[in-house]
């Protein structure tokens, strides 16, 4: 990347990739004392060419590398590719499989929101108490996932045409038990962190993003909903069983970092509701339709949109009759939100201390943006 010219009396700080909070990216900050004038994001440190890798894999093999985009959120990333394949090939999925998919997706969503929640706490200078709480409490979910899918992370559980395994015996009761435990814990998070006065003054009115700006700059996910725009791919273009489930889109009007944190917090509550519904109302039936592993899809072009923990992911899939995709283009949520983050310094007053809070409020995952 060529660095833009420096204005006079401005100091440029290279924030990352070697910084305790930066992750695998570099962000150039043009600062005047504490105030930040300009943010330049230098992405691409973890580019692995996933789009190109997918062109060299059969449709079934491609499920494995694409889930590596976001490790905390593998189910939601995986289902985006799988719904694209199913759309292109016209595969029907049994209803029970759709419900199981919704369950695993919501568990992954809680998992990734917990991570974002912990990092948001740490970015305000909470010594990592909340971060370690969230990491400990997600064990409940990982245990459930392990029992259902066989893996705690990166389960490759979804296949075109359904899911790999049905519920083990007595799994529904375990879900209810886990949900009840997490409900209690989340009440503690609310009391200890979101209601904490110091946390509130650190995040309230920081990086205000109006609804118009959020739409204009292409924000997505909790950033968009935190600005009061009610868009969620689970309602816009329903996939899995979200049409049959009873849940609502969470929005907050304030548009600041606190609102984004609250959106995540309340979405976890909705996800717990969905888990409970799936455990009690899941229909009986087969869990997959038979699809050949050497699946060939005739010439077609589809676009699938899925709501991940960070926002909308779009998979643009071109097929040409072979057993491998002709081209896959991934529109990732972190990249879209990073454009918003770059504009934040111009839209609002931001200091060095705010910067960390703001970047964690968009919940970046650089493997996602770099692909």
């Amino acid at each position, binding site marked *: 990347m060529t660095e833009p010219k420096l204005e006079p009396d401005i*100091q440029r*700080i290279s924030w990352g990739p070697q*910084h*305790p*909070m930066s992750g695998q990216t570099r962000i150039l900050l043009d600062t005047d*004392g*504490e105030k930040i004038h300009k943010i330049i994001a230098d992405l691409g440190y973890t580019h692995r060419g996933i789009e190109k890798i997918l062109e060299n894999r059969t449709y079934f093999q491609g499920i494995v590398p694409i889930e590596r985009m976001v490790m905390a959120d593998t189910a939601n990333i995986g289902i985006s590719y799988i719904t694209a394949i199913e759309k292109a090939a016209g595969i029907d999925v049994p209803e029970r499989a759709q419900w199981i998919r919704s369950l695993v997706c919501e568990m992954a969503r809680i998992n990734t929101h917990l991570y974002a929640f912990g990092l948001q*706490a*740490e*970015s*305000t*200078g*909470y*010594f*990592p*108490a909340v971060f*370690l*709480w969230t990491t*400990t409490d997600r064990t409940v979910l990982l245990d459930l996932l392990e029992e259902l899918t066989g893996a705690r992370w990166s389960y490759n559980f979804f296949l075109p045409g359904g899911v790999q395994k049905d519920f083990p015996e007595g799994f529904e009761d375990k879900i209810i038990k886990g949900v009840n435990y997490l409900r209690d814990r989340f009440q503690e998070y609310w009391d200890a962190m979101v209601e*904490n006065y*110091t*946390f509130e*003054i*650190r995040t309230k009115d920081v990086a205000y993003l109006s609804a118009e700006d959020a739409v204009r700059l292409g924000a997505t996910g909790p950033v968009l909903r935190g600005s009061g725009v009610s868009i969620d791919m689970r309602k816009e273009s329903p996939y899995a069983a979200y049409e049959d489930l009873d849940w609502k889109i969470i929005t907050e009007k304030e548009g600041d970092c606190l609102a984004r944190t609250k959106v995540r917090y309340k979405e976890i509550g909705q996800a717990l509701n969905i888990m409970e519904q799936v455990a009690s109302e899941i229909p009986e039936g087969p869990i997959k339709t038979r699809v050949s592993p050497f699946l060939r899809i005739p010439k077609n072009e589809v676009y699938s949109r899925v709501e991940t923990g960070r926002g909308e992911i779009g998979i643009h899939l071109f097929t040409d009759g072979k057993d491998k995709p002709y081209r896959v283009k991934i529109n990732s949520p972190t990249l879209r939100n990073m454009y918003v983050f770059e504009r934040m310094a111009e839209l609002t007053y931001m*200091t*060095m*201390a*705010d*910067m*960390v809070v703001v970047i964690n409020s968009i919940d970046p995952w650089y493997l996602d943006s770099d692909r």
Partner: protein
Amino acid sequence: MWTFLSINSKPLLQITLIPGLAFILVFAIFAVWFERKFLARAMLRVGPYYCGKRSGLLQVFADFLKLFLKEIIIPDDVNKWFFSAMPVLASTIPALALILIPCDKNWVLWDIGSLSLPMFFAIAGLAPLIPIFAGWASNNKYSFIGAWRVAYMYISAEIPLVLCGAAIAIMAGSFDLVKIVEMQKNMWFALPQFIGFIIFFIGVIIEAERTPFDIPVAEVELVFGWRTEFSGIFFGFTMMAEYVMFQAWTLLFITLYLGGYNGPVLFGNVIASHIFWLIAKMLAVVVFIILLRCVFPRLKMNQMLNLGWKYLTPLALLNLVFVLAMKVMGVA
């Protein structure tokens, strides 16, 4: 002239034991250990576990040894003299302030009578200069920002602290720390000067750079603030400096507001029980301040300045006026 070196001499005991070297080192070891072990409980962890049989006490020594044996890296572009001198000075200058603290009427290492309280503020006022020089000498942008954060923060904290000290001196009628403590035989100054007590307590947290005022070393923002470039034992010294400042200000806080060494006589020995009460009070305050770390996020610089100039300074002035009025009316 060298009589103080005889084994029975009081100055030697004072320098080596209390309030001297052993006092500082044991305090630092305790504070690091307590912070690690008990904050871990708040975070659903166990903390250091294997080194020192589950209590994790030996981990502190192991880490000290590691810091001591590590290579000291002096970057190319730094000002070498300043860079090497500052970590050492950072832990020694606040330690100088400790020698003014009375552990008993007859147990003051540097008894300068009515100059002791101003001298404490003078020595402690030197301390923030060290981070500023260190940040400048490091030739690092994070260190530099951290250094200026130190400057802003200490100025806004020390003015209310000095005003509170003045109120105490007016009430006691003396700047002598021993006399101030002796005045509190019957009633701690925390009761008549409750506003000053609260302000001074906040000031102590600011001076010790503890959460929520650990702004100059804010890890998630500035890597490690003015201490970013130090490695090995230099880093160890800067860590030490934090704890020495913490200890010095806590001791002054106890001396001014919580009755200093006063307390019921134990063990039938007046000096020993006085020293016991001083340490007990210090540990109580220190534990309270350390535990704040799992409750509060960090404040921003502008919020910190707001607190210092808009709230602490006017309230400290109010406290001073209040004490003056009490003195004029002859209540105190």
